[in-house]
């Protein structure tokens, strides 16, 4: 019981950290083409994510692996019920990765332009489909006792699309703030101006999402039962609001950190609302996949908890050190 709750929390942490980190890769990837006005600047923007995207993406692989190990029934259901969305996420991530790695391998303008657009499109479709998937999970998937009743096109409902827009809006702002933090010169100025605009968008979409959540999902049930937990969404909004003054005072790292907190807390809000469900059923609450009915045995949960307790902090420490090592501002001519 305790172990299953612990793993529910860890599951949430892995997803939240993944979105916090890869979110700025996606955001920067989407914005690059529109912010950069020269080959130098396109190179600069690529160098801002080039050395870190791969390490960030491993959080997704770990989240997937942890779902498999701790909640195999959820893993099996989530990935097979959402077969085509998963495929689109995969294809997006594949294209995103090779775009970053291959773009600078050759000089030709055509070659680079193809990869620039591949990166922009895949950085857009990945959060789009991730948001669509999670939005539908928040609402509940049509799981009956004897199987799944859903289809691909029913995922494109209002709330699912709103969640997709939320992911994209949060990541756009996140990516813009990251570019501001990492670069300088006219490119950084443009990113700064854009980030100011994106803040309004992100805040507006987040507010709409929090309101729509009350109507489209049962996520607020847990909050109403234990109102203290409302602190989580309140802090999420507060972090998002805090981006503005920090950004206005040119506290680039502070604004980025506030955006990190906002993303983590939005995911946390959803998870507090879901608990103990990992994937609620919209048809029959007894068919929901929960932390209790979809988990591995206590032996595996304990083993994996020990592994996570030892290695996740180590990973955080060395990733933090690598980020610190790479912290010096990228200037014109920086190449990845």
């Amino acid at each position, binding site marked *: 019981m305790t172990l299953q709750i612990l793993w529910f929390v860890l599951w949430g942490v892995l997803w939240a950290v993944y979105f916090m980190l890869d979110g700025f890769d996606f955001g920067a990837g989407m914005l690059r083409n529109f912010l950069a006005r020269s080959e130098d600047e396109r190179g600069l923007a690529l160098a801002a994510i080039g050395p870190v995207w791969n*390490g960030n993406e491993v959080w997704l692989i770990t989240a*997937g692996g942890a779902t498999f190990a701790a909640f195999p029934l959820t893993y099996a259901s989530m990935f097979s019920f959402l077969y085509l969305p*998963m495929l689109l996420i995969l294809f997006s991530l594949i294209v995103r*990765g090779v775009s970053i790695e291959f773009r600078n391998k050759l000089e030709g303008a055509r070659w680079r332009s193809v990869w620039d657009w591949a990166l922009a499109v895949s950085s857009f479709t990945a959060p789009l489909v991730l948001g669509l998937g999670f939005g539908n999970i928040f609402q509940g998937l049509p799981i009956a006792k004897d199987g799944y009743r859903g289809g691909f096109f029913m995922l494109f409902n209002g709330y699912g699309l709103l969640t997709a827009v939320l992911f994209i809006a949060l990541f756009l702002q996140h990516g813009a703030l990251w570019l501001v933090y990492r670069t300088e010169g006219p490119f950084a100025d443009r990113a700064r101006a854009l980030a100011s605009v994106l803040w309004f968008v992100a805040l507006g979409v987040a507010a709409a999402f929090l309101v729509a959540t009350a109507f489209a999902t049962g996520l607020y049930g847990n909050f109403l039962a234990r109102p203290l937990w409302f602190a989580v969404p309140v802090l999420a909004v507060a972090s998002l609001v805090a981006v503005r003054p920090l950004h206005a005072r040119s506290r680039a790292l502070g604004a980025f950190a506030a955006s990190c907190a906002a993303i983590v807390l939005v995911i946390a809000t959803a998870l507090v609302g879901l608990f103990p469900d990992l994937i609620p059923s919209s048809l029959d609450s007894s068919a929901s996949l929960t932390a209790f009915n979809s988990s591995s045995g206590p032996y595996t949960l304990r083993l994996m908890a020990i592994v996570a307790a030892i290695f996740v902090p180590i990973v955080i420490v060395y990733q933090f050190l690598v980020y610190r090592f790479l912290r010096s501002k990228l200037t014109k001519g920086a190449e990845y």
Partner: protein
Amino acid sequence: MSVEALSRIQFAAVAIFHFLFVPLTLGMSALVAFMETRYARTGDEIYLRMTKYWSRLFLINFAVGVVTGITLEFQFGMNWAEYSKFVGDIFGAPLAIEATVAFFLESTFIGLWMFSWNRVSKGVHAAIMWVVAVASTLSALWILLANGWMQKPRGFVLVGGRAQLVDFGALLWNPYAWIKLFHAGTAAFTLSAFFMMGISAIHLLRGRHVEMFKKSFRIGAAFGLAASLLIIVAGDLSGRQVAEYQPTKLAAMESQWTTVKAAPFYLLELPEPKAERNLVEALPIPNMLSILSYQDPNATVKGLLDFPADQRPPVAVSFWSFRIMVALGFLFVLLALLALVFSLRDTLATKRWFLWIMPFAIILPYLACELGWILAELGRQPWIVYGLLRTKDAVSRSITAGDVLISLVGFVLLYGCLAAVDAFLLVKYARKTEE
């Protein structure tokens, strides 16, 4: 076609494709680290040029390996949901540990390595590549521990139709996985060594940067000979394990239809699976199959006909992938030996015929690696977890044949493009000897 058939084709396609990039990552990371360490130690610029040249090829390969690896983690849940439910308690653990313990390290440090030229000392920079090399081997270990459990399940109990882990030690010390690591590891080094020798040979034929490519060739020859000799040992140990743990696979790969005591090994054999016999059995080495399988000249080797028909793996593909792989293994020793002799005697320049062979030989270890996996996975059929769960019972129930057809076509197109771009870049960069 059924969901099962399409899913099997898809898994085979994405796994085979992914494994085109894995061995070079495993072997080349260590070879690049080795070259850079030589540079850090000696300060000799030629090692720096070698490090830069070979690492450029390594990184192109690495990128495709990384992006195609995620597919496999997703595949189990997407297409093999019933399998995932059955084994999640056990199989998920090494996969999650792989990501946490190894893949994080590999991915984070490869980014650091690319970005820290001239920003850290030579020694530290070389050490970063060693971290990448060790992490990629660790990564292989955990993946093989997961695969090893499918081949030789242990340390579990069946509870309510699902396998539950009760003994992590049994999973971790699964001899099948460790021998497989030895086998796959030596194969990866052989492949990387042939990659280095083949490309160096092209430059030597054209007389470009002779000093650098002579050195590269020699490193390739030395590693290649050591690794290919060790493969013979690894292959022998693997064979014994198959005999002990997976008698149906042994019978299929040897095309042994009847149970025979003191079984010979036929150098020339031609299976005829439809008739459940061999068309040709010639040039026997007496008792050899019994010795190879059980280290006992009089041991009994059980034949396919003594297994129920619904437990027999496909014979022709198991047999041929095994035979060709073994033949190639011995060929690698021969080629690497010649390469090392010519290199040490410094007679490569006069052995143009040999330099002409080596570029074409690059493809052979790739072929051998893939055949090895085809044997390992198809030889395990009809089981997905040997003796416990059949492949036909493992496939997802919520997906349709149409879904899988869409994804299969998508993978073929996307991977086709990836392969073309990768090959194009490798050729470009293999030619590019200047900064």
